[in-house]
């Protein structure tokens, strides 16, 4: 049994893993909110354009105007406003950090050596930062 497992709440302290435990759950809730906002937006802006479920969902997961290019939407302008770019950027950053941390958690279950775990963490940062920048670049230049 791990030491400290049964410590009362006020003696457990706050460390990075604990914060990330909260972040994983709270970012999930935040992404649910963002998806809901995007669905409502798509239903408002896409009404009368025969959007099907797949088009709405594609927009819901990432509100980027490229995602409705191939639909019957007559004007892309309302789909490419700053509001949707900020919303999409939030989705990207939340999803990327949630996902990369998730990969670290999975890899920790298979590698117990300290140096491998540190390597995994270093590689995860090296992966997260450029991918976030590339994603933001795509979002804001499209």
């Amino acid at each position: 049994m791990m030491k400290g497992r049964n410590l009362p709440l006020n003696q457990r302290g706050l460390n990075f893993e604990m914060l990330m435990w909260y972040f994983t759950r709270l970012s999930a809730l935040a992404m649910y909110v963002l998806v809901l906002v995007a669905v409502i937006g798509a239903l408002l802006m896409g009404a009368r354009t025969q959007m099907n479920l797949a088009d709405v969902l594609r927009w819901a997961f990432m509100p980027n105007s490229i995602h409705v290019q191939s639909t019957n939407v007559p004007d892309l302008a309302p789909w490419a406003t700053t509001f949707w770019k900020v919303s999409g950027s939030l989705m990207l950053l939340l999803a990327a950090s949630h996902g990369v941390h998730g990969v670290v958690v999975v890899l920790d279950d298979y590698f117990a050596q300290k140096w491998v775990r540190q390597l995994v963490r270093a590689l995860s940062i090296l992966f997260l930062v450029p991918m976030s920048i590339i994603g933001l670049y795509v979002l804001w230049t499209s």
Partner: protein
Amino acid sequence: MASERNVSLLRGLRYKGEGPMLTFILHRIGGLGIVLFVTVHILASFLGGKGGQFINAIYEHWLFQIFVYFCALFHAINGLRITILDLWPALLEYQREAIWLEWAVFLPVYGIAVFIILRTALGG
């Protein structure tokens, strides 16, 4: 801190974790599938051109769509269950009921989409 594993693969496979274990494994597969898809998708839309179109063709294939939709939907629904039960631990007592509820939501939503994907892909 770091735990040494002395459980063989065979023994691990025979572990009878039942419903909760299944959701745990599917949650991992789903999460890794999403990471894979999102990474490739971001790179493809960044590169564009011939390479981007080639990668687009892969994930527009109906087999890939069925896979990635499973990953996204299961991870989202199971993640919501984990979030709710973890943030309100009193509910953990009803974990198995929550998992049954989760399947009751997941199966119809996933099944209808797979039916439509297959009908579009094969029926034309």
